[in-house]
């Protein structure tokens, strides 16, 4: 099968996949106990009011009709109305998504740039002190939950040493957010030339991003170390060494061959963190997608919950697809 056909097949599979996700989310909403109409109407509503709300929400129709209506709405980008914020779920999510993306993107750039050089270094010099420290770190960082590290670091760096701002929100309370272009405060503040906001954003990003990077760099580091050391055993490396190439160049050859699994690992972590940084967002009052999800769940805001699940799942699917296609583009050995 040629690369082109493979890409087309994967893209074609994306359609039923998204349909599958939507169906599962719909079933989940239906499985939840309680009549949504009661929740909307409130406890004082009369029977007539509830009946009219049921009709308005389409709850009186057969389940199959409801499913088709739901699919139709989702296809048009309408994820329903949130009962908590009383605005459209799609708007709510779009408003909060950049906060989460900014945080996890920075965190993974950090994690990647810690893990890759360290993994490389330890693979080149196995058994040294650095190698042992790095592998101990790889094990320990992941053995404690991320929220434990977050609380500990907040206690230490904010509570005791006062080197980071209070874990409340994305910028200083006294400052106004930059005019929205991308929703990323760092980029928007640069675009509007608002330097105080830029520095405040960075200061607030520093600790949550570092915490996530610290915890999730572990698996990436392990992957980097094992793939580089595997590559170093390859015949082409032996040949390069035998030809008398300098160590630096040999290391570069090994790195180039080991890079893909490391990128995959980072990609998978990215997809995971979109819905997995919930606790960190909660601790730092980040106001992103994760915190929105927690609010929605604790207040039984089903449309909002299903919206978040749908958006994060489809986003992760796209990330995985991108990683697979990246393989195809970069690695000449892979032919599907």
């Amino acid at each position, binding site marked *: 099968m040629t690369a082109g056909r493979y890409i087309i097949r994967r893209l074609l599979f994306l359609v039923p*996949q998204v349909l599958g996700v939507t169906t599962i989310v719909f079933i989940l909403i239906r499985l939840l106990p309680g009549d949504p109409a009661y929740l909307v109407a409130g406890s004082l509503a009369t029977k007539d009011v509830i009946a009219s709300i049921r009709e308005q929400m389409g709850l009186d129709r057969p389940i199959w009709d409801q499913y088709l209506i739901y699919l139709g709405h989702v296809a048009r980008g309408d994820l329903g109305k949130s009962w908590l914020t009383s605005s459209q779920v799609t708007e709510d999510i779009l408003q909060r998504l950049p906060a989460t993306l900014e945080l996890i993107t920075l965190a993974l750039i950090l994690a990647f740039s810690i893990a890759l050089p360290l993994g490389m270094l330890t693979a080149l010099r196995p058994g040294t002190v650095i190698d042992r420290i790095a592998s101990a770190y790889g094990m320990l960082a992941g053995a404690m939950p991320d929220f434990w590290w977050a609380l500990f670091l907040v206690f230490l760096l904010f*509570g005791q040493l006062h080197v980071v701002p209070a874990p409340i929100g994305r910028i200083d309370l006294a400052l106004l957010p930059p005019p929205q272009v991308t929703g990323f405060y760092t980029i928007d503040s640069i675009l509007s030339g608002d330097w105080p906001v830029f520095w405040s954003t960075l200061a607030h990003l520093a600790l949550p991003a570092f915490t996530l990077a610290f915890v999730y760099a572990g698996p990436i580091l392990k992957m980097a170390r094992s793939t580089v050391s595997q590559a170093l055993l390859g015949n082409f490396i032996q040949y390069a060494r035998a030809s008398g190439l300098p160590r630096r160049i040999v290391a570069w050859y090994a790195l180039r061959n080991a890079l893909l699994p490391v990128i995959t690992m980072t990609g998978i972590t990215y997809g995971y963190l979109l819905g997995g940084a*919930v606790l960190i967002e909660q601790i730092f009052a980040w106001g992103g997608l994760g915190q929105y*999800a927690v609010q929605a*769940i604790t207040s039984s805001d089903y449309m909002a919950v299903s919206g978040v*699940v749908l958006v994060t*799942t489809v986003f992760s699917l796209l990330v*995985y697809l991108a990683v697979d296609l990246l393989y195809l583009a970069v690695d000449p050995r892979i032919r599907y």
Partner: protein
Amino acid sequence: MNLDGRHLRYLIKTRPVALGGAVIVAVALLLAMIGPLIAPYDPTTAIPGDQLQPPSLRHLMGTDGNGMDVFSRVIASPRTDLTIAILGTLGAIAVGIPLGLVAGYYRGFLSELLMRVSDIVQSFPVFILGMALVVVTGQEIRNVVYVVAIVNCPIYVRLVRGQVLFLRERPFIEAARVLGARDSWLIREHIFPNAIGPVVANASITIGWAILLTAGLSFIGAGVRVPTPEKRQAIAVGAKNIYTGEWWPSVFPGVALALTVLGFALLGEAMVQMTDSTRR
């Protein structure tokens, strides 16, 4: 899988870290069985007037904000912790193995379909889904087990499928097929026993991961309800006390949690290496 005595002795000599992991796991399992019996205090009963006592001889790890003995809770908690993690992992394996065998052995549309469905399940935001399921269906141990099982299932489907894809082209399988072996017999007698190694090894890693997931769920208040002794629960509730200087209700359970997860991770890592013929 070559897990005989000779291998084990060899490992102990060359990999003391793995042995350490095995010891931690053994202690955790033992505590899961007898922990609640040997705890000095009832782990679910608050002692009136003893709230937030620092560690002392009377309370080795102090007491928490409710006045419950932290040491007793740490000792009693593996029963809840490990039950959730192990049952969830077993569930994931029980569903994952047959699907993986099918997906690997019968290639083509069915295999592709199974893989893409796995993609979907793996793409679901584990944490949000777990939280929603537990909050909505009630904060019961059973529900946390389901979440762990469902979200980990695709890992085992992939793992087994990979093994089968590799095995089914091997000469001994081909030979059996030439001799007229039926598919069902081949899978049962040859493919399954040879594909199971990495699954067992990976189980340990999943268990550690499951303990962490439930820790997070408890932190947000979607885990097991308060009186049930469960480490993560303790960390979460105790976290509020850190700020006021009472560190013991969260640090001791935190360290115990980290040790448990680490133990399972180390053991799992060692077993992965043992069962992976290319890395022995």
